[in-house]
């Protein structure tokens, strides 16, 4: 079982949190801080596994994380999950994000937290791995996005237009910043 999925950046700012067990909001923030503290002090060339912090977990749980450019993807899992399997799952998730957002970067996650959640929902459900096949995941995500668009129909058009106008005048819209460093580099991975 996966107990929690946390995504935060190099400064510990949460970009997505998904707990599969109830914690009150302040506890959640504390967990994020603790996890960030544990993960951020580790070099890049050490292993991707970490005995869980004191807040989340206990002896049966461990943190499995990957660090991409500016973001940490951390999964807290128990011993029934295979460690390397979860590492791969993170990779699948990030690659899916990359496909769905076309060259994903941190700003995509910042501004589209909801979409990231919807993608994650197709990968993990209620703490259990739902799908590991990237094509299947993207297909389902696409269909749902199309449904959303068709439902929006005409009435959503003005809102979209306004949103586009709003974005135009602002310096920090996602697409305008394309510094290579911010982009999540997805190392190519042989399929299994």
């Amino acid at each position: 079982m996966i107990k929690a999925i946390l995504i935060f950046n190099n400064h510990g700012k949460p970009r997505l949190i998904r707990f599969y067990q109830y914690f009150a909001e302040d506890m959640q923030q504390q967990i994020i801080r603790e996890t960030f503290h544990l993960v951020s002090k580790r070099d890049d060339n050490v292993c991707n596994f970490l005995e869980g912090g004191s807040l989340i977990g206990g002896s049966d749980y461990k943190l499995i994380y990957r660090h991409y450019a500016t973001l940490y993807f951390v999964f807290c899992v128990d011993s029934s999950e295979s460690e390397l399997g979860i590492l791969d799952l993170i990779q699948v998730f990030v690659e899916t994000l990359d496909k769905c957002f076309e060259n994903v970067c941190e700003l995509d996650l910042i501004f589209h937290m909801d979409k990231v959640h919807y993608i994650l929902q197709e990968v993990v459900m209620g703490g259990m791995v739902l799908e590991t096949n990237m094509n299947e995941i993207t297909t389902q995500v696409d269909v749902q996005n199309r449904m959303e668009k068709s439902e929006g129909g005409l009435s959503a058009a003005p809102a979209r237009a306004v949103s586009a106008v709003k974005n135009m005048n602002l310096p920090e819209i996602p697409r305008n910043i394309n510094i290579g460093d911010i982009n999540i580099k997805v190392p190519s991975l042989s399929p299994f």
Partner: protein
Amino acid sequence: MALKIVKGSIDRMFDKNLQDLVRGIRNHKEDEAKYISTCIDEIKQELKQDNIAVKANAVCKLTYLQMLGYDVSWAAFNIVEVMSSSKFTYKRIGYLAASQCFHESTDVIMLTTNQIRKDLSSPNQYDTGVALTGLSCFVTPDLARDLANDIMTLMSHTKPYIRKKAVLIMYKVFLKYPESLRPAFPRLKEKLEDPDPGVQSAAVNVICELARRNPKNYLSLAPLFFKLMTSSTNNWVLIKIIKLFGALTPLEPRLGKKLIEPLTNLIHSTSAMSLLYECVNTVYIDVNTPPLPSLSLSLCLYLSLPPQLCVQKLRILIEDSDQNLKYLGLLAMSKILKTHPKSVQSHKDLILQCLDDKDESIRLRALDLLYGMVSKKNLMEIVKKLMLHVDKAEGTTYRDELLTKIIDICSQSNYQYITNFEWYISILVELTRLEGTRHGHLIASQMLDVAIRVKAIRGFAVAQMATLLDNAHLLTGNMQRMGICEVLYAAAWICGEFSEHLENPMQTLEAMLRPKVATLPGHIQAVYVQNAAKLFATVLKSQEGNTDSTAAQETSQLMIDRLPLFVQSANLEVQERASCILQLVKYIQKLQQKDVEVAEEVSALFAGELNPVAPKAQKKVPVPEGLDLDSWINEPPSESESEDEQPKAIFAKEEPKHSRPRREEVDEKELAKRREARKQEQANNPFYIKASPSSQKVYQEAPGVEHIPVVQIDLSVPLKVPGLPMSDQYVKLEEERRQKERAEKKKKEKKKRKEKRSGRGKKHDSGPESEEDITPAHQVDIVTEEMPENALPSDDDDKDPNDPHKALDIDLDKPLADSEKLPVRSHRAAEAPKSPTEDGDATSQEPKKKSSKEKREKKKDKDRDRKKSSKHKKKKQKKEKEEKEKKKKKKHHHHHHHSDGGGEEAVQNGTVEEEEPLPVSVFFCFLPLTKVYDIQGNLQDGSQVVVSVIFENKCDSFLKSMEFNVLDSLNSKLQRPEGSGPHDGLTVPFQLPPGVSNEARFVFTVQSIIMPQKLKGTLTFIVKNEDSSTHEKLDFKLHFTCTSYLITTPCYSDAFAKLLESGDLKCSSVRLEGVNMPFHHLLARICFHHHFSVVERIDSCASMYSRSIQGHHVCLLVKTVSIDAKCDEPTLLGNVLDEIKQTFSQC
């Protein structure tokens, strides 16, 4: 109005959406909190609007704020509203928000049951998918029970997308509602062979998760998994299956042999193994690139190899440069260590090497392994190495981990590996020099334990502790809050209790009475004071022997001078002890001045030996027959007194409450007295089973079983090392000693070869290299911890009683009993009390416990029945004539139905009056004819009401020829087929085999709906047994309330305002007395039970609307304490208000 809508949608364009919110927050870095609070205010405004798009947008923003740590539970009701939108876009937003912030105690969850059920059965698979995903995050026992059947149906959905989600969520349902496991299991098993790989993988996932906790129940699935293992190509599935077999093989050894072949096949057929080798040979240099699932599969495969071979392979992994592999290799190694410690022990070098790794995760893993590698021979060496690490370690977490590991390693299995306790004490003393450790109490309890249980070491221990006390200032410097000063607790106690071993008690006494002591935590001061008294007794004793009596008087004076400091302590415990002792000393001083010898009497206060008591001893005391521990003897005392039972509370962190050591200090006489009293009591108690004359005394007099063999040794080991001890010296000494011993042994061997070894019994757990050559440095006598007489041998107290998986320990192979069927739709089972005769076998399969909530509801229902009032309880009602109920078991189910338009259903209650112990029960539900929900709908049809009746046969006989008849009233008539008379009954179109239920619908024509009414009716049927058949009759009453004629109808605020202005409506109002529930809860209830919809809500005031099937408008203005209402039909309004009042008077 049209203008308003257009305006609304233009406004909406300029509403902040999620992106705007995020951007805004990023632009307000300095005053983020302030900005967010204005945003929340905006969101609150948006939530008040009718437009669902605006609400959804607001909820979406709330989800973001929740991530930033803001509590958004206040919007739970709005989230439910958005969830129930018919548009997928908004529904998805609602479910996402719900999954992020709902949990078991969110009260609006109970309102979602029907919405979720509707979504689950939606024709759009993504509506279903979204509902399943959401539900998986906030499923509660109630939801699980109510929806289990719907989800089970979805497991056979045509779309694999839904199937796999339904299969996965079943695991959550099992956890919350364990009764569903058995009925659902056959289908789950079926899904293991689903054509879709995703569904298959989900089923494997669920079963593995279940089997991990209770493997024995899943042994019968082994053949199926066997087949899957040979056929599946999905690495994820294979990994899970191999893991599952790992859990099953210990239970069924034959399985292991059978597995060898398919596993070796797998090893050859998949590329996994070779991939691993390639990986090991560093073909893959980049950490990120090896195909991980294959890798982890091969790891699994490794673990299935014979341990020797496996460990060798793991060694290759551990030596690899890839840190991940190294970690996993160590992890796998620790699994093998549990079963085959020997094969791991030979790799000690490698593991010690890993202790130096730069990666903390790897060091921790290696530490874990060390635990299993120590032997008598290498303990000192390993601990020495660890001590070096302790000194170097940066970061307190790792250092604390090291510290606990050192103590774990040394103390494991009753100090089995320690040959020299002086060394161990010095290690402990060295550990006290660690700065900032959290584990002071751990060191302290070790010191106490060793000093108490190893008698031979007491002299040494006391000397060390005295030094510690002398140098207490070193410890207390700035670490007070960090907990290392806990060791002073142990030090003071040891010095006091074993003060006869002290070389210079006077000096120690002075050290314990220093003013600085007053800065220590209260519970430590208390121990100081108490033990100062013990020391005082010892000092007196030694001084009175002398001729000079002034020394003794000076000592008393010292006590009298110093103790007042403690008498002033803010800590009660300290104060009390100090003042007692102070008075005692003053008295002693008086006696001394009269030249009376007091030392004997003073030391008698503390005479007697203490025995170590096992930590679990208290728990193991068997409860004498006839003693009910749960009943109060007196009124419950205040909470604070119940802390004694906590087994770990040796040293309460700050409170002076620490029972165990203190209890041991109860003086011997008192103890003896109590013991005597207890014996007396036991002797007089006929229920007390007397123990065989073994038990505690044996431990004190004869050597226990676990005593380490006693060897006469030469005195090459100095009993005291001057100054603060350095454990290193012991290592050296130990080596010298061993060498000497070996040399001596050789000599002896030459002399008398034959006699050799016959004398000393072989030890079972000797290390790899003739462990028995190593002898303890000096006579050691480890006293076994005491256990109470007749302690129960059970060792199950390690299990967590709250583990949800315990409830899932269910035998899955037994055939399914009828009683175990899942509750269908919302016919919620509310069982009538069972007769004692039936309780025995037939119903033993029945789910044992209903949730207490349900019980409460049941009770409420009954209470209401007695009042003979109309009742609305959620979706169900119930009536029983209790006086007529005989031994037969009956179930009264309640039922409700959706009208097709998706509107709220009209619920009504039925009445069953039993004349005989009849074997049938009837359940009622009314619903107005469908389509009335449509606003354009033909309200002319509003004179018809459909009553849905569920018949359930609860007896063992076959029921047939059922006829349903109702005595028509002027107002309401049962619609009968053409050509039948007004008093003819309607034939129920089915027969009922035992235990089966079915539903029939009857249409009634109602003239006036403004009054509630009751209809009498009868049901006749034939009970057919094997040998006979009898006619039976069942009388019942149907109760039509006014609420059941109302249909939830949405209304926009402008239309609502117009309606109110029109002046056609009559006014009435009602006060809600004694209702103290949250306002949204109150609204929810009205919506739910009385089919209203919220038009507008401003703070704690809301307007609500509903419409009757004949088109009456009912408007409510709800405030927290009262409801003002308007309706074009005053009688109807009056009745509806009465019913609402009734609803709230019952909660």
